[in-house]
């Protein structure tokens, strides 16, 4: 918030010096310039301010009795629940279990989808063979496959991994194939006229060219994994955030349900920010 104040003060100062040849716009106009840009600090301030404002409205609404706290508890109550659950119900352990499941399934899906997707767009024959199959399975909703996966894998850990894998692998394959297809033909042909063999072109040029988009798609797909996690953990589990949420619901402990949801949000936000920062660092040349 102090950044905003600072920015506004700076603007005031500019207005005072009337000799300024370029007329400074009003602060609000500067903030809301159509397709304009903001400083890093102003953006952070607005991001925090926006979330804080929303929480504040929510808190006030419940304090004033506009909502029934059984259905819609105040953020402070949810926060309390998080604290209590960390202290006495192993919330962090459950969160850890869920995170581990997500990453295990995600890494498995990525390890399979990256080579297969690359081959699908590098070799027309492989693409022609696999595309219809992948497209078919991709459109099947994961929950519809829950009964089948229980028949196949029972209710243990493998069912959860399988469901998560199912939800991400088939999407990821097509995204990877698309990233590879979008590598400019010029790069391929430059490498060829420098004497590179197809395998070298694939490894040294095409893969490098697609890498930034690939990493971006992995980040997005990781988010989807969390969606399927909750389904998997609701179906059959005695651990994980999905299990915590579902158990709390049975006793109508709305704050605890919300605490679980918020926990997922926090993990998601943190992971996403870390991966974005890593992306920026790794692909600074872009």
């Amino acid at each position, binding site marked *: 918030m102090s950044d905003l104040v600072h920015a506004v003060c700076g603007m005031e100062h500019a207005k005072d010096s009337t000799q300024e040849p370029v007329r400074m716009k009003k602060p609000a106009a500067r903030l809301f310039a159509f397709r304009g840009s903001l400083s890093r600090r102003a953006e952070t301030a607005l991001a925090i301010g926006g979330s804080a404002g929303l929480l504040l409205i929510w808190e006030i609404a419940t304090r004033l009795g506009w909502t029934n706290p059984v259905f819609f508890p105040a953020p402070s109550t949810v926060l309390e629940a998080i604290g209590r659950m960390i202290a006495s119900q192993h919330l962090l352990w459950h969160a850890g279990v869920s995170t581990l499941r997500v990453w295990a399934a995600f890494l498995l899906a990525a390890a399979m989808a990256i080579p297969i997707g690359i081959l699908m767009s590098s070799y027309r024959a492989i693409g022609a063979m696999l595309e219809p199959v992948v497209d078919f399975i991709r459109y099947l909703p994961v929950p519809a496959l829950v009964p089948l996966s229980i028949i196949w894998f029972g209710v243990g850990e493998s069912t959860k991994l399988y469901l998560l894998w199912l939800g991400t692998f088939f999407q990821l394959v097509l995204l990877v194939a698309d990233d590879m297809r979008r590598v400019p033909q010029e790069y391929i042909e430059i490498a060829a006229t*420098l004497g590179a063999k197809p395998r070298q072109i694939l490894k040294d040029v095409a893969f490098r060219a697609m890498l930034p988009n690939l990493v971006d798609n992995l980040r997005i797909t990781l988010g989807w994994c969390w969606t399927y996690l909750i389904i998997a953990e609701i179906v059959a589990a005695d651990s994980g955030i999905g299990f915590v949420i579902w158990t709390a619901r049975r006793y109508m402990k709305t704050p605890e349900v919300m605490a679980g949801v918020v926990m997922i949000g926090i993990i998601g936000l943190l992971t996403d920010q870390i991966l974005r920062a890593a992306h920026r660092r790794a692909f600074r040349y872009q």
Partner: protein
Amino acid sequence: MNTPYLAFDRVTKTFGEIEVVAPVFDLDIGRNEFVVFLGPSGCGKTTLMRMIGGLDTPTSGEIRLDGAPVGPPDWRRGMVFQSYSSFPWLTVAQNVEFGMRYRNDLSAEEKLARRDHYLDLVGLYEFSDAYPNRVSGGMRQRVAIARTLASGSDVLLMDEPFGALDAQRRETLQVELRNIQKRDAKTIVFVTHDVEEAVFLADRVVVFSKRPARVVADIDVTDRLGAERHLELRDGVRFFELRNEILRLLRKVGAVDE
């Protein structure tokens, strides 16, 4: 000139139903010649050049380099494109070095020496560690030229390499390219739409018809303007006469350029 350096033996190319290159045979290119292909857009001149590089194969006929039919692409025939000409994930120096990546016959020291030599030659030494997105479009084309030269290719195939540059950068690069070509004795096949660029650069301008491409005129520019090219040449009467002559030709074959 008994065996021409680059020879075209009734070369044709069709894509599906579309005939892109008519039998081309009267187009022998000598060693160290700078040949510019001119013609209406989409006439097939680029396809003809790509076939020299091995990036497309003739539907019938044969292209021979130094007496031997050209095969798949290799480092002896280098390509410079208009866009995506340098790899964005490599620095300027690494891009130039990449030109020799698959040359196992060069030692590591040789590669470094050649890299520095060509970086220096195109005036990019001080930008060695910059990524392509940090330098101008003209510098990116210089990177591509230096990379192709460093690879050691004898034939440079250039597909409108200066097409995206502003007039001033274009002129500078044209002078540089011409100097490098004469000094390093390279054979260059250059495709462009710009008649003045063609006249300024070329030893020979080959004008193609509308699709399917066939040679309609083969103009010996060096005979008319001399081998020495400097910017003042562009203001001379002879330059203008030649330019207008070629423009008239292009109008006749139906190129709507200009």
